[in-house]
């Protein structure tokens, strides 16, 4: 048995397709879905039911993780509207944005040698968090106007920011390990 609820993450969570999602509703709905679907509720059931439960719970987890993360949610909305983020077909990025990225990367590379490496990383983190918040605002606006080309550009830049953010965290972890 294969269960496939394709294209209905928002509907599964009883929400309209929109970038703005009420976090509390998302969490509550997630818990009530898992209370019903989770494999722990089927531990003594027939094999077919157990397998169904695993697939359904996997699907709900994926949906929840997608809708909970602003960037994943934005990408998902693009895909629902038939917009591909495929980097290989289109590598164009704004020169200004790329310049900023290079500066941030340079700062990240130099952070371990700074007098206070944690403070240096913290500074980069704050800058990234600010940029990501602006990305979220810009996306919400573009999304409302159904301006998909702009929305797509915003998401692609956002992905860069997110990747850099995880590199900052990895650098922090390396500093911790060296303590």
């Amino acid at each position: 048995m294969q269960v496939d609820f394709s294209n209905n993450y928002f509907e599964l969570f009883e929400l309209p397709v929109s970038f703005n999602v009420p976090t509390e509703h998302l969490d509550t709905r997630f818990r009530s879905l898992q209370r019903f679907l989770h494999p722990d509720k089927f531990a003594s059931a027939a094999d077919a039911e157990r397998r169904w439960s695993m697939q359904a719970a996997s699907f709900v987890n994926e949906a929840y993780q997608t809708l909970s993360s602003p960037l994943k949610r934005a990408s998902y909305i693009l895909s629902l509207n038939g917009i591909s983020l495929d980097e290989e077909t289109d590598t164009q990025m704004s020169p200004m944005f790329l310049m900023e990225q290079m500066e941030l990367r340079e700062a990240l590379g130099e952070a371990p040698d700074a007098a206070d490496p944690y403070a240096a990383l913290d500074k980069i983190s704050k800058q990234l968090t600010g940029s990501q918040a602006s990305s979220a605002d810009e996306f919400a606006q573009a999304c409302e106007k159904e301006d998909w080309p702009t929305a797509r550009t915003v998401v692609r830049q956002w992905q860069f920011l997110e990747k850099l953010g995880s590199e900052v965290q990895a650098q922090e972890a390396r500093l911790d390990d060296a303590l």
Partner: protein
Amino acid sequence: MALLQISEPGQSQAPHQRRLAVGIDLGTTNSLVASVISGSATVLKNEQHEWSIPSVVYYSASGEPVVGSSAQENAASDPFNTIRSAKRLMGKGSDDVSNSWLAEHYEFDFDSGSIPAFKTAAGNRTAIEVSANILSTLRSTAEKTLGGELVGAVITVPAYFDDAQRQATKDAAALAGIHVLRLLNEPTAAAVAYGLDNGNDGVVAIYDLGGGTFDISLLKMQRGVFEVLATAGNTALGGDDFDNAVADWLMEQSGVSALPDQGARRQLLRLARSLKETLSSQQTAPYELNLGESLMFRGEIHVDTFNSIIEALFKKTLPSCRQVLRDAGIAKSDVQAVVMVGGSTRVPLVRERVGEFFEQTVLTDIDPDQVVAVGAAIQADVLAGNKPDSDLLLLDVIPLSLGLETMGGLVEKIVPRNTTIPIARAQEFTTYKDGQTAMALHVVQGERELVADCRSLARFELRDIPARTAGACRIQVLFQVDADGLLTVSALEKESGVVASIDVKPSYGLSDGEIEEMLRASMEHASEDVQKRALAEQKVEGSRVVEAIASALDADGDQHLSSEERSEIDALVASLKQSLEGDVSDNIKLAVEKLEAGSSVFVERRMNASVKELMAGQELSELERKLVTDTNVED
């Protein structure tokens, strides 16, 4: 006076029978079994009145393996045949074993099987078999105390166990004849024990330092739902390391550069351990141990000295603490409670320093040695179906990222660490050369970018890919991680529909054949009646299936089935019931299989109907469009 309950004629059902289920804490140093008795989770004592047994197995040339305290008595006199800390080698390969301190303590056979084995007087024994012996002992303790056959057990594992270590634990349970209801992460089990007692909502940290493993987890608790936010740790760090460090210090103090044999080392370790325990409540501990000429250990150790000896080891736990906070995006001030788990958290320095790190007093209300087993017992009781109205739900995560090797020895991450399980993720890959018709997939687990730095889980091959130009094929690889944290990988070439599927058999694990062989061997040696045992197990399983289907049919059988369909299933149920009256385990097995196959359509209709109900308020036709159900794609 209570009124007798009498069911409607024709609907008669046996009164609800409590299903016997236990929680097992299979520890590096000690192991425990617990069960919910009259509503409260209780650690079960064995015939010697011990609620905790040493995870030690003694193998002699004649006779059955001896487990627990009686085994430990042989540690000094017959060290090579007295196996302890086997948990450290679960899911490990030859390289890991050679680099472990266990390699100095035991003799290993690296070549005979697919995983290294201890050389003992009773023959080669893998860590899986040693663990199985411990599990069998716990099972028999439980069955004697509870007075019946177990339907299953929840077995705890360190949260940071990888796929190979989890699979090894499950294999050990299979060898011990235990049906695993769930592999549960130890810190999650501890949170269950605490959460239900305290009834608090919020984020808690579970710091679990056991004999051989360290875990730190952050959990969000909300109205009975335990959601793991992040977990990190070290599966090769624990109280054993404290003992070794103290033993080294004792040698240094006494001017002893080497010990004559393993027996002497064991005695010194035992001394180190008792000093550690004394220093948990005293400022100083005197010692005296004579192991022979110029091997005299005599003196006194102060708690400050002890602290300085273990300081470096303790500090190894802090990066993981920072890691979980970072991964969960939680500040220290958001952590409402810090729970201490594992015997090694009895060390005052550990409690103190963890408290300093999280800037609060740590919780030690529940015995740190019992808390994991207690939590596992509560979960087992729910999973066995004894508490249908329970609010308890555990949402755990995968501790280490899963990925595939790509060109150049790089890892493409598919399921990042701390993803809530169960989870399925698909990823597309393509061919590298023109005309390429096969593709090797190498599944790894870990956080590093290079394959060489990650743990190899399994390799499998996808064949019969249509010969096309490089990059033209689209191969979709699906990673399915189940609620036990175990991975299944399948791959599909999208154009041709070629399917390859494997269960991830660990690169450092047993093949199915080896497991069968061990099972057969262990049964030959077992004194109990093997046939009887198999029949009893099959009967438990058969009754479980009858019950499951009966309650489903009662609930909504008529709603989903035509009378013809219904009578077909009824006939299969009847024939299973009949086989349960008999004494042939194969007949029961066959009847179970027939019933499960025959009722699959019913099960499917029920589940889909439930989903529709769940999504009530929406147009049914719309739901039907979204809910694609295909019975042909299976497997």
